[in-house]
């Protein structure tokens, strides 16, 4: 089993990436970032920055996410991102 497909480590990996890349040091201390924090609608990740987040996911999980699936809704929380990533991991494994 691919270790990154384990829910807990995948969640932590994505959360860490968002914290390190999209939040300032000061900001990171103020924002309660968890798997259900709204990222796009909450203004933490904007639609342009979504491209780099998508690139990270593709690289880290060795998947390809079609542009039409990279919607603000699909990227709005770490939970919804994990659903998307897991779907593509399952496809890859099939």
């Amino acid at each position, binding site marked *: 089993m691919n270790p990154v497909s384990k829910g807990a480590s995948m969640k932590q990996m994505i959360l860490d990436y968002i914290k390190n890349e999209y939040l300032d040091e000061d900001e990171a201390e103020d924002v309660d970032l968890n798997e259900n924090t709204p990222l796009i609608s909450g203004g933490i990740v904007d639609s342009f920055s979504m491209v780099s987040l998508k690139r990270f996911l593709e*690289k880290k999980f060795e998947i390809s996410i079609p542009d039409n699936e990279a919607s603000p809704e699909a990227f709005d929380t770490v939970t919804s991102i994990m659903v998307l990533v897991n779907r593509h991991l399952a496809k890859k494994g099939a």
Partner: protein
Amino acid sequence: MSFDYERMCHETTWEVAREELRYTDGDTVNIGYLCVDVHVEAGRGEKLALIHEGHDGTLRQFTFRDLQQLTNGWAEFLRKTVSIRQLDRVCLFLDKVPELYIGFLGVLKTGAVVEPLFSAFGEDALIARMQDSRATAIITQKRHVGKVRKAKDRLPDLKTIIVIDHDEDGRKLKEGEIDYRMMDHRVDTFPIAPTYPETPSVLHYTSGTTGAPKGAMHVHGSVFAQYLTSKLVLDIKADDIYWCTADPGWVTGTSYGIIGPWVLGATQVVLDAGYSSDRWYATIERHHVTVWYTAPTAIRMLMKDGFEPVRRRTLTSLRHMCSVGEPLNPEAVRWGYEAFGLWFHDTFWQTETGSIVITNLPGMPVKPGSMGRPFPALTAAVVEPKTGEPITEPGRVGLIAIRPPWPSLMRTYWNNTATYYSKFLNGWYICGDQASLDKDGYFWFCGRDDDVINTGGHLVGPFEIESALLEHPAVAESAAIGKPDPVNMEVVKAFVALKPGFTPNADLELDIMNYVRKKLSPLAMPQEIEFVEKVPKTRSGKILRRVLKAKELGQPIGDISTMDDD
């Protein structure tokens, strides 16, 4: 009654705006006063001015009386506590929070110049703009104060950092930082600075092909143009609920997201949340928005989600819709009509023009894909690039030109008058965009006349991106171009030659992307990086972006006799 453009041109003059705003020669004029105090003095103090919805759905409402007391509070604080003097530059570096809209007018009441900065700007973008303007104060919030702190050492003129949401229980403020809670500072009267039509008011930075961003300086008299265009183009009336989706970090968000609609006494809706089609439709439905001013990129994103989310909502309050930022493609105009039963009216203008200059007016037959016709108080033409002579032949491409003066034309580029004067040719102001005219006098956009990248309705300078790329430890040479994109019109594509010892790979690509995003802004982040052996340049070292763009588009490369082929 049919639309009579010629008659409208005859009847529409800037003098009409001056009369309707009760201005006579020699009077003072202050944007802050006209947006707020006029309405209170006329007995409309209890009218709702601002409905603010936060990303978590929290609603806050402000009447014009609230705005009067709170703008006075800002002005008194800035003058007495921060010692802001007339013509000092005061930056706003805030999300779309009420303090941004109200603070903007508070600064103007003091007679200082307000300099809005897009809240997603990174440290380098802040430094470039604030070093040039020599701003003495910045109003920001906890989320963004870290970036200001990092930039501060390179900003010797910056004396005061005002933080609007400092938490007493949180970290301590540093030297030069002040806590200001807007809602705790209501002031009934404030002696508004005696500003005149030519007194500087708003400083907006805009990107060019070369050099650092340029500060377009506007004056208080710009309000005459913003008022008249808001009235006649956006069709805003005092009883309208108006939603401008632009961020006041950019000129649309101030000219038409603060000034124009409030001078007309309308109620404005502000949604401080990231994009989601359902949230946008819910906002129109919840607040009964009647007039909507948005951008082609947003409209194309809404299109992607189809008609179903539109039909789930009751959007019958909408009566007029306009668009700005980049050309609105015919498919989007037609989709808008099918979705809402209304036409999106495309409008064209830029940071330098301060107000709409070419437009589709209410009632005017819309030709999907056309920019429309000149605003009736203006004379506009398509001119020969070399001579500035107007082109009358339909379909022939030239440069969009507007005959000065008009009230909201920038008065200079701050610290850069040579570039300012270079924008004029044969008595015309040259916008830098190419277009053609049809036989009915409608303008049709063809493209930029320079290398500036229009992404999501915002202009990004390739030079700024290339400079940021060069600061990355792996990058030896860089070039940036706008690559066509179905949603954003263009996105940034970078060409990068690496230093010895570095190998192109996905990790490095992502690292470079994020590096530029943090240095400049998400808009400037290359969405694609192509690693090359070397960047094409002339023998004198100038980057040949047109060669890269032609290759990207599969077009002929053209004359490359000046290219350095060593």
